[in-house]
């Protein structure tokens, strides 16, 4: 059985010659640009709602949001499972675009659902769950389409460009929401309807411009996605984890997920250390997004040149450094700027680049399932590490807890690097079993 049909070196040796790399810099496949545009538009829509939802619940509906956080953890488990099922369905019917489209569609419809849910807390909870489900279902097929429409040696760049477009959308969303509120006053309905219209436009762009079977792929023809072969079976999907390279990368992703504690903790520690004026608290997240947005493409390009593994591992070094800073002697503006930049760098170096690293290792016909497994493993581990960090904070206090978190990053790096090193080699040649 072919594990990997990658016919070119993924990362080793690095892309030769600056001239060639320079000429290629202009080349991100049309499909990647289309997917990036869909993500940008969709994120504008999503972040609009995120920005006004607290205002809407508390001031618009006069609901008590504390009752609201309770339902949160329950959905994470269900979404994780459905994400894998969605990935498998996308592979089995070779309908990655359709499954991604359904995910985008679900999230779009959820925006209208907010209007219909009215003041019912369970209904609003259900609508938010549908929105999350859509987000969970769409990301694996979307990333699989990116890997299938990009030559393996350019995956870093492709994901870099995609994640940059994605975060530009996330950056613009709250601004658009504020603009709408400025025009209509406290009518939150108008924000939801606008958000729905923007999300619907995203679906239109997807339907019109994203291709299921990329014809613009540089090296391989239409068989890249496994067309013409027998359909993927459930057994084969389970078998994915029995094979060494994919198993290693899923395991590594979960381990790496354990290294990161929740964003909220990082911002809370910064706020406490620096006594950041509480009013400015939300700007901490904005600072991180800005660093992420600016660094995603350069780091993707770097990953194509020097290899994805060093960039991913470097990202986790930046994460460890961020944690150490939070318990270190540095203070004031230098701490804020350095910590947020390093934190954004962590996201830029790992989020897309890890999928770029994983993609070539996963057989094309099972790629969506594989990516879903990688992302789910990481998400679940992240939830576990956040809970553990909460307990550590309780037991030892914030300073010790964050030092332990930094030490955990170091341990995870030591364990993960040898796990992923063979993956990098495997990715570069044809493997059979």
């Amino acid at each position, binding site marked *: 059985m072919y594990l990997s049909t990658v016919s070119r070196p993924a990362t080793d040796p690095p892309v030769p010659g600056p001239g060639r790399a320079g000429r290629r810099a202009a080349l991100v496949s049309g499909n990647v640009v289309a997917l990036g545009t869909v993500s940008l538009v969709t994120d504008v829509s999503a972040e609009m709602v995120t920005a006004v939802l607290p205002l809407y619940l508390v*001031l618009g509906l006069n609901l008590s949001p504390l009752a609201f956080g309770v339902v949160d*953890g329950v959905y994470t488990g269900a979404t994780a499972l459905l994400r894998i099922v969605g990935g498998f369905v996308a592979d089995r019917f070779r309908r990655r675009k359709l499954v991604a489209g359904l995910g985008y569609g679900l999230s779009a419809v959820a925006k209208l659902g907010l209007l219909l849910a009215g003041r019912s807390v369970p209904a609003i909870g259900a609508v938010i769950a549908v929105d999350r489900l859509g987000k969970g279902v769409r990301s694996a097929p979307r990333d699989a389409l990116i890997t299938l429409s990009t030559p393996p040696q350019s995956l870093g760049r492709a994901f870099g460009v995609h994640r940059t477009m994605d975060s530009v959308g996330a950056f613009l969303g709250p601004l658009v929401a504020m603009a709408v509120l400025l025009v209509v006053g406290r009518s939150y309905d*108008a924000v939801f309807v606008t958000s729905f219209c*923007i999300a619907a436009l995203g679906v239109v762009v997807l339907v019109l411009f994203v291709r299921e079977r990329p014809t613009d792929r540089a090296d391989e023809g239409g068989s890249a996605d496994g067309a013409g072969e027998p359909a993927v079976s459930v057994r084969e999907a389970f078998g994915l984890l029995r094979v060494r390279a994919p198993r290693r990368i899923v395991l590594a992703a979960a381990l790496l997920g354990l290294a990161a504690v929740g964003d909220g903790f990082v911002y809370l520690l910064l706020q406490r250390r620096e006594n950041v004026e*509480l009013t400015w608290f939300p700007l901490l997240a904005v600072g991180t997004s800005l660093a992420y947005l600016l660094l995603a493409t350069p780091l993707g390009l770097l990953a194509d040149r020097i290899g994805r593994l060093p960039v991913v591992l470097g990202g986790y070094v930046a994460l460890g450094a961020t944690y150490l800073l939070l318990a270190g002697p540095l203070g004031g503006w230098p701490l804020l700027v350095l910590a947020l930049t390093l934190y954004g760098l962590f996201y830029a170096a790992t989020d897309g680049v890890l999928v770029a690293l994983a993609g070539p290792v996963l057989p094309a016909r099972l790629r969506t399932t594989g990516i879903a497994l990688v992302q789910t493993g990481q998400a679940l581990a992240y939830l576990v590490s956040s809970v553990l960090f909460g307990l550590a904070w309780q037991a030892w206090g914030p300073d010790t807890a964050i030092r332990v978190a930094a030490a955990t990053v170091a341990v995870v790096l030591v364990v993960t690097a040898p796990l992923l090193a063979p993956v990098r080699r495997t990715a570069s040649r044809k493997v059979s079993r």
Partner: protein
Amino acid sequence: MTALSTRAKVGLAAASAVLLGAVAAGYAAFAAEPAPPPPPTAGAGSVTLDPGPRLLTVTDRHVASVATADPAGPRAVSAVECLRVYAAAGTGVCLGPENAWSYRLVVLDAALRPQRSFAIPGLPNRARVSASGRMVSWTTFVGGDSYTASGFSTRTGIVDTRAGTTVMSLEDFAVTREGRPYRSADVNYWGVTFTADDNHFYATMSTAGKRYLVRGDFAARTVETLKENVECPSLSPDGTRIAFKEAVDADPNRGWRLSVLDLATMRVTATAETASVDDQAAWLDGATLAYTLRQSDGRPDVWAVPADGSGAPRLLVPGAESPSPLT
């Protein structure tokens, strides 16, 4: 779809964008909130915070007052815009908008003149003034800093208006939970009520999924837990009882029963109000509680119910919220 030329696709996308844009703009025009009418400052005289037989409320987001003897009758409405208001001994606290998306706390004198004012993070939720008018507290909802992503957290602060001390968040106070020192990143406070000594206070503290009644010491910066499942405490004028909202079956998703705790016996008595009350109640006198309930469309009304569990709730001030007796 593959049959379409690129030009046709771009055309279709552009047409969709125009159509969807028109839908959004049309809805916005249809749904836009009409400019609120200027508040009628005249009518039933002007609003003051001087102690007297009047009840202070928020009406259409403006500070207003009615006569206690005729609460549904003529209403004096001021130009001061607040989402939450409370007053005692001629000192008021107003949580009002600073601009479209941020809020501030304003301490008011008896003539509603601002004495001090500062930005508060998040969305206004609770406000309280001590009986002497010296201590002021507030609670806001803050989105997004809970570690399980979309959870909400609260921020509660206290100002000592005489000494000029401001604590922006109680989260730095030392906690004793069930007799033992306790700390956690997820500690949240809401709903402060002050005792007569202007130093001790009661409040709700939540951590690890539980909500406690705590007794705090402002000068010592400490709190200790007293009882579980007590939210939004409101101390009676004689300091012997606490009105609070009790989550049904200890699950806030099932709503809250307005109840009263006797501090000497720690016995809880449910009031006759069976609707879910999500408010920090106010004591109109030693025997009556006032609180806000919302109709299905979100319109608020102020209701009153006896504190001893007898009688029945009655509608006090229609179309108003955030009740505060002027004592």
